């Protein structure tokens, strides 16, 4: 773990993928892991299934007073690769780390200075039958990828929180995050 006191994260998803819940769970996990304060900020409007959704998370070693939107996140957690087809989203990604759900290699190019990780979270969810209303739920798998890419949270804390939160379905969610942890890898930008 680095010595930074504050980490800011932007979670991008589509309505129905569990991005807002995933953001809150990630905050819970960071708190369980010993961060002093967190704030999970869902940006809620008139969204519905499929619409691009955004949520912010701050995790901190200090008490947090801010409630404003995260403008320059340390990490992007992108639950759906197709969100990068929006220019306004792709263009905001600079000098940061992105963790992206993709199966066949991310087809979008980031500017230099961006560190990218990829994880086949949708594939993991489908393989594990982790679905709600026919849609694969990738949020907890993405948290596993976040753990691997950042080293900020531990797998056992993910387990504790998701089992506590989902009850019976928690084990399956945890399995998804452990699998994602295993499969997350850094993308070589010049590949």
């Amino acid at each position, binding site marked *: 773990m680095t010595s930074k006191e504050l980490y800011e994260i932007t979670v991008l998803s589509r309505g129905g993928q569990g991005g807002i819940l995933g953001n*809150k769970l990630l*905050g*819970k996990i960071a*708190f369980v892991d010993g961060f002093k*304060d*967190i*704030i*999970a*900020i*869902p940006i*809620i409007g008139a969204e519905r299934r499929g619409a691009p959704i955004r949520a912010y998370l701050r995790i901190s070693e200090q008490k*947090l*007073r*801010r*409630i*404003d*939107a995260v*403008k320059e996140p340390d990490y992007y957690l992108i639950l759906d690769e197709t969100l990068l087809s929006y220019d306004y989203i792709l263009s905001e990604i600079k000098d940061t780390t992105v963790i992206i759900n993709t199966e066949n290699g991310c087809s979008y190019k980031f500017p230099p200075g961006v560190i990218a990780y990829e994880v086949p979270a949708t594939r993991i969810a489908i393989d594990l039958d982790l679905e709600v209303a026919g849609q694969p739920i990738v949020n907890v798998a993405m948290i596993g990828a976040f753990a691997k890419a950042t080293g900020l949270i531990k797998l056992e804390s993910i387990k504790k929180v998701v089992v506590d939160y989902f009850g019976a379905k928690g084990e399956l969610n945890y399995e998804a995050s452990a699998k994602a942890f295993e499969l997350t890898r850094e993308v070589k930008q010049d590949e």
Partner: protein
Amino acid sequence: MTDEKQETLIITGNEASAWGARRSKAHVVTAFPITPQTTVMETISEFVDSGKMQCNFVKVESEHSVMAGMVGASMTGARCFTATSGQGLLYMAEMVHWVSGSRLPVVTTIASRGIAPPWNIWVDYSDILSMRDSGWIIQFASTHQEIFDSILMSYKLAEDPRVMLPVFIAYGGFSQSHTSKPVVIPSQKAVDDYLPPVPDDGWPHLVLNPEKPIVHGNLLMPQQEYMEFRYKMHETIHGAKPIIKEVIADFHEKFGRNYHGLIESYRCDDAKYILVTVGALGEQVKDAVDTLRSEGKKVGSIKIRYFRPFPKEDLVEILGSKNLEGIVVVDRSIAYGSPTGGHISSEFSNILSELPSSLTYLPAVWGLGGRDVTVGDQESVFNDLINLHEENEIKETSNSYINGTLWVNLKVR
């Protein structure tokens, strides 16, 4: 989560509100959904459904009935709780006055939102401030913990026989109602030790008892004491100031969390410039103060916690300091046609006569309808104030200075 031990939960502001009702053992909750309050009532209904909270959870057909239900239930001596937002609060406005005029100690949380039209569901305190003169005590909760803690403190305050007035606790729609933060939920026993049960035989002034029928809500003729009853309420709400401080001190002793008083000041001791505001942005602005202090600017901030009663004496005490050169008072609400455009800044003008006349006074408005106010925006307001004081004009800013009021990030060509 059990009731036996203290735990820290990561919960939304609305969940913190529901927990406040649960730990206060509210007997009656009336419910009607409205965004962004709805999840307060959803959470309470889950508590009731799972048997974790014993209360009469009454679903009614409108906000008017929500507050009418509070009147009837509270008259029996029950501890009563509800929550609403924006348009819902406006719809219950008539009954809001019935609660205060009947001197009933109801506690209501407001997840504040912009008033329609055009529709808006995000933080804006114009809803709660439209209840400015309703005779309710009006408090702003600036953190999630404060939402929960304030409910406990508010029952203690409202049910004090010297007060017997209802309390509104307002916090930001979405910005607080739907964001999640750690909140310490004390054990039920700890809360019971702090907040005693309601009296067995009802409130001292009013109780419904079929054995002893009374008529309440009487007509008072002009020559009768209508005016005296009104003055008495005004005096009582002002007289609540020391009682609010007692309640806060008692809470501090019991739970170790200090809410300071009617206002909370931050780095004001040697400050030359002070920003005054309410709510969560009053907490966030401390980050802006720290940044500007590190640049050598002597700034501080004040968070107004209680708007009714208006903390005039507390403000004068801090702002009367000889070091002070400028004050900016920022509203997250709009008071159309008022002297400044903001509720608090307009009202604040009344205390200027008690402050040194050399002071620069800048009213400002930010973040209406949930528009994001960043720490950077808050720094810009301080810089504009310093600019105005030193140069007598505001230059190079993203804010608009129009007719004496600073409109933060207003789109102007």
